[in-house]
Protein backbone atom coordinates (compact mmCIF):
# COMPACT_ATOMS: atom_id res chain seq x y z
CA UNK A 1 0.00 0.00 0.00
CA UNK A 2 1.10 3.57 -0.60
CA UNK A 3 2.41 5.40 2.45
CA UNK A 4 4.30 8.49 3.58
CA UNK A 5 6.63 8.53 6.56
CA UNK A 6 8.07 11.46 8.42
CA UNK A 7 10.28 9.71 10.96
CA UNK A 8 10.96 12.76 13.13
CA UNK A 9 8.03 13.88 15.24
CA UNK A 10 9.86 16.79 16.82
CA UNK A 11 13.12 18.55 15.94
CA UNK A 12 14.90 21.35 17.78
CA UNK A 13 17.55 23.48 16.10
CA UNK A 14 19.38 26.65 17.04
CA UNK A 15 18.67 29.79 15.11
CA UNK A 16 21.17 30.07 12.28
CA UNK A 17 21.81 26.34 12.12
CA UNK A 18 20.98 24.21 9.12
CA UNK A 19 17.87 22.07 8.94
CA UNK A 20 16.89 18.85 7.26
CA UNK A 21 13.46 17.27 7.64
CA UNK A 22 13.02 13.76 6.35
CA UNK A 23 10.25 12.34 4.22
CA UNK A 24 10.05 8.85 2.75
CA UNK A 25 7.32 7.33 0.66
CA UNK A 26 6.31 3.93 -0.55
CA UNK A 27 4.84 3.73 -4.04
CA UNK A 28 5.40 1.76 -7.21
CA UNK A 29 6.12 4.82 -9.33
CA UNK A 30 7.26 8.36 -8.82
CA UNK A 31 4.49 10.35 -7.18
CA UNK A 32 4.06 14.08 -7.05
CA UNK A 33 5.72 15.40 -3.90
CA UNK A 34 5.01 18.40 -1.71
CA UNK A 35 6.03 20.08 1.49
CA UNK A 36 3.61 22.20 3.49
CA UNK A 37 4.09 24.36 6.56
CA UNK A 38 1.50 24.99 9.26
CA UNK A 39 1.86 27.77 11.79
CA UNK A 40 -0.14 27.46 15.01
CA UNK A 41 -3.86 28.01 14.48
CA UNK A 42 -3.43 28.31 10.73
CA UNK A 43 -4.09 26.26 7.66
CA UNK A 44 -1.37 24.67 5.59
CA UNK A 45 0.75 26.66 3.18
CA UNK A 46 2.56 25.11 0.25
CA UNK A 47 6.34 25.46 0.53
CA UNK A 48 7.44 23.63 -2.59
CA UNK A 49 6.52 20.90 -5.02
CA UNK A 50 8.08 18.31 -7.28
CA UNK A 51 6.39 16.93 -10.36
CA UNK A 52 9.30 15.96 -12.59
CA UNK A 53 12.61 17.22 -13.93
CA UNK A 54 15.33 18.71 -11.77
CA UNK A 55 15.44 16.76 -8.53
CA UNK A 56 16.43 19.78 -6.45
CA UNK A 57 13.52 22.15 -6.09
CA UNK A 58 13.42 25.58 -4.57
CA UNK A 59 10.52 26.87 -2.56
CA UNK A 60 9.41 29.87 -0.62
CA UNK A 61 11.05 31.20 2.55
CA UNK A 62 14.48 29.88 1.53
CA UNK A 63 13.54 26.20 1.63
CA UNK A 64 14.64 23.57 -0.84
CA UNK A 65 14.01 19.86 -1.19
CA UNK A 66 15.76 17.07 -3.02
CA UNK A 67 14.03 14.10 -4.58
CA UNK A 68 16.08 10.91 -4.44
CA UNK A 69 14.43 8.15 -6.37
CA UNK A 70 16.83 5.46 -5.14
CA UNK A 71 15.93 6.26 -1.53
CA UNK A 72 12.25 7.12 -2.10
CA UNK A 73 12.90 10.32 -0.22
CA UNK A 74 12.05 13.97 -0.51
CA UNK A 75 13.88 15.73 2.30
CA UNK A 76 13.36 19.38 3.09
CA UNK A 77 16.37 21.58 3.82
CA UNK A 78 17.22 25.10 4.83
CA UNK A 79 20.79 26.31 5.26
CA UNK A 80 20.08 28.79 8.08
CA UNK A 81 16.96 28.60 10.21
CA UNK A 82 15.17 31.69 11.48
CA UNK A 83 13.04 31.87 14.61
CA UNK A 84 9.99 32.44 12.40
CA UNK A 85 10.47 28.98 10.86
CA UNK A 86 9.14 27.37 14.03
CA UNK A 87 6.05 25.51 12.84
CA UNK A 88 4.87 22.08 11.86
CA UNK A 89 5.94 20.70 8.50
CA UNK A 90 4.07 18.14 6.47
CA UNK A 91 5.24 16.09 3.56
CA UNK A 92 2.53 15.09 1.11
CA UNK A 93 2.49 12.79 -1.87
CA UNK A 94 -0.05 12.36 -4.61
CA UNK A 95 -0.76 8.86 -5.83
CA UNK A 96 -2.89 7.81 -8.73
CA UNK A 97 -5.87 5.79 -7.57
CA UNK A 98 -8.84 4.82 -9.69
CA UNK A 99 -7.90 7.40 -12.28
CA UNK A 100 -7.85 10.21 -9.77
CA UNK A 101 -5.08 11.73 -7.75
CA UNK A 102 -5.26 11.04 -4.02
CA UNK A 103 -3.23 13.05 -1.56
CA UNK A 104 -1.62 11.41 1.44
CA UNK A 105 0.02 13.44 4.20
CA UNK A 106 2.76 12.42 6.56
CA UNK A 107 2.18 12.77 10.28
CA UNK A 108 4.19 15.97 10.46
CA UNK A 109 7.41 17.20 12.06
CA UNK A 110 7.21 19.94 14.64
CA UNK A 111 10.18 22.29 14.45
CA UNK A 112 11.31 24.24 17.47
CA UNK A 113 13.91 26.99 17.03
CA UNK A 114 15.97 28.05 20.02
CA UNK A 115 17.93 31.32 20.25
Amino acid at each position, binding site marked *: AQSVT*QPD*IHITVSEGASLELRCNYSYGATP*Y*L*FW*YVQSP*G*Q*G*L*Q*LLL*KYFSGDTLVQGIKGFEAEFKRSQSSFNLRKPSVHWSDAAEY*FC*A*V*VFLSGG*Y*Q*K*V*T*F*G*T*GTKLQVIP
Partner: protein
Amino acid sequence: VTQNPRYLITVTGKKLTVTCSQNMNHEYMSWYRQDPGMGLKLIYYSVGAGITDKGEVPNGYNVSRSTTEDFPLRLELAAPSQTSVYFCASSPLDRGGEAFFGQGTRLTVV
Protein backbone atom coordinates in the same frame (compact mmCIF):
# COMPACT_ATOMS: atom_id res chain seq x y z
CA VAL B 1 -10.62 28.99 0.42
CA THR B 2 -13.11 30.11 3.01
CA GLN B 3 -14.54 27.83 5.62
CA ASN B 4 -16.96 28.65 8.41
CA PRO B 5 -17.23 28.65 11.30
CA ARG B 6 -13.69 28.81 12.70
CA TYR B 7 -14.76 27.46 16.06
CA LEU B 8 -17.74 25.32 16.96
CA ILE B 9 -18.89 23.64 20.15
CA THR B 10 -21.82 21.30 19.99
CA VAL B 11 -23.40 18.44 21.91
CA THR B 12 -23.53 14.77 21.08
CA GLY B 13 -26.24 13.90 18.59
CA LYS B 14 -26.60 17.30 17.01
CA LYS B 15 -26.55 17.83 13.29
CA LEU B 16 -24.15 20.41 11.95
CA THR B 17 -22.65 21.75 8.76
CA VAL B 18 -19.27 23.32 8.09
CA THR B 19 -19.21 25.35 4.92
CA CYS B 20 -16.38 25.64 2.41
CA SER B 21 -16.19 27.79 -0.67
CA GLN B 22 -13.52 28.74 -3.19
CA ASN B 23 -13.44 31.23 -6.03
CA MET B 24 -10.48 29.84 -7.97
CA ASN B 25 -12.59 27.57 -10.18
CA HIS B 26 -10.77 24.51 -8.85
CA GLU B 27 -12.31 21.20 -9.75
CA TYR B 28 -10.78 19.27 -6.86
CA MET B 29 -11.97 19.91 -3.31
CA SER B 30 -11.42 17.90 -0.20
CA TRP B 31 -12.03 17.71 3.53
CA TYR B 32 -9.45 16.62 6.07
CA ARG B 33 -9.45 16.18 9.78
CA GLN B 34 -6.34 16.81 11.80
CA ASP B 35 -5.72 15.20 15.16
CA PRO B 36 -2.54 15.72 17.22
CA GLY B 37 0.32 13.55 15.99
CA MET B 38 -1.80 11.99 13.27
CA GLY B 39 -1.28 14.34 10.36
CA LEU B 40 -4.20 15.02 8.06
CA LYS B 41 -6.68 12.31 7.22
CA LEU B 42 -8.80 12.61 4.10
CA ILE B 43 -12.54 12.45 4.84
CA TYR B 44 -14.13 13.06 1.45
CA TYR B 45 -13.09 14.53 -1.83
CA SER B 46 -14.75 15.79 -4.98
CA VAL B 47 -13.42 16.08 -8.52
CA GLY B 48 -16.24 18.27 -9.76
CA ALA B 49 -19.84 19.29 -9.27
CA GLY B 50 -22.00 16.27 -8.60
CA ILE B 51 -19.05 13.93 -7.99
CA THR B 52 -17.87 12.98 -4.51
CA ASP B 53 -16.01 10.01 -3.10
CA LYS B 54 -14.90 8.68 0.25
CA GLY B 55 -11.47 9.20 1.60
CA GLU B 56 -9.70 7.42 4.41
CA VAL B 57 -12.08 8.27 7.30
CA PRO B 58 -15.60 8.95 5.91
CA ASN B 59 -17.74 7.34 8.61
CA GLY B 60 -20.06 9.80 10.34
CA TYR B 61 -19.64 12.48 7.68
CA ASN B 62 -21.43 13.48 4.53
CA VAL B 63 -20.71 15.90 1.71
CA SER B 64 -22.28 17.26 -1.42
CA ARG B 65 -20.99 19.26 -4.36
CA SER B 66 -23.80 21.04 -6.14
CA THR B 67 -21.55 23.78 -7.53
CA THR B 68 -17.87 24.10 -8.34
CA GLU B 69 -17.47 26.69 -5.59
CA ASP B 70 -19.05 25.01 -2.57
CA PHE B 71 -18.28 21.79 -0.72
CA PRO B 72 -20.01 21.63 2.68
CA LEU B 73 -19.21 18.99 5.27
CA ARG B 74 -22.09 17.60 7.31
CA LEU B 75 -22.12 15.67 10.53
CA GLU B 76 -25.51 14.02 10.88
CA LEU B 77 -25.07 12.90 14.48
CA ALA B 78 -22.11 14.60 16.12
CA ALA B 79 -20.03 12.37 18.38
CA PRO B 80 -17.16 13.14 20.80
CA SER B 81 -14.84 11.14 18.52
CA GLN B 82 -15.38 13.81 15.89
CA THR B 83 -13.75 16.47 18.05
CA SER B 84 -10.95 17.62 15.78
CA VAL B 85 -9.73 20.38 13.51
CA TYR B 86 -11.18 20.25 10.02
CA PHE B 87 -9.61 21.66 6.90
CA CYS B 88 -11.11 22.22 3.51
CA ALA B 89 -8.79 22.40 0.52
CA SER B 90 -9.06 23.00 -3.21
CA SER B 91 -6.75 22.51 -6.17
CA PRO B 92 -6.75 22.15 -9.94
CA LEU B 93 -7.81 18.64 -10.89
CA ASP B 94 -4.48 17.63 -12.38
CA ARG B 95 -2.53 18.93 -9.40
CA GLY B 96 -4.40 17.44 -6.51
CA GLY B 97 -1.53 17.86 -4.10
CA GLU B 98 -0.95 21.51 -4.88
CA ALA B 99 -3.71 22.58 -2.58
CA PHE B 100 -4.98 25.79 -1.10
CA PHE B 101 -6.24 25.30 2.44
CA GLY B 102 -8.85 27.04 4.48
CA GLN B 103 -8.02 28.33 7.94
CA GLY B 104 -9.57 25.37 9.66
CA THR B 105 -12.58 24.73 11.88
CA ARG B 106 -11.98 23.61 15.43
CA LEU B 107 -14.91 21.42 16.43
CA THR B 108 -15.58 20.26 19.96
CA VAL B 109 -18.35 17.75 20.62
CA VAL B 110 -19.30 17.39 24.28
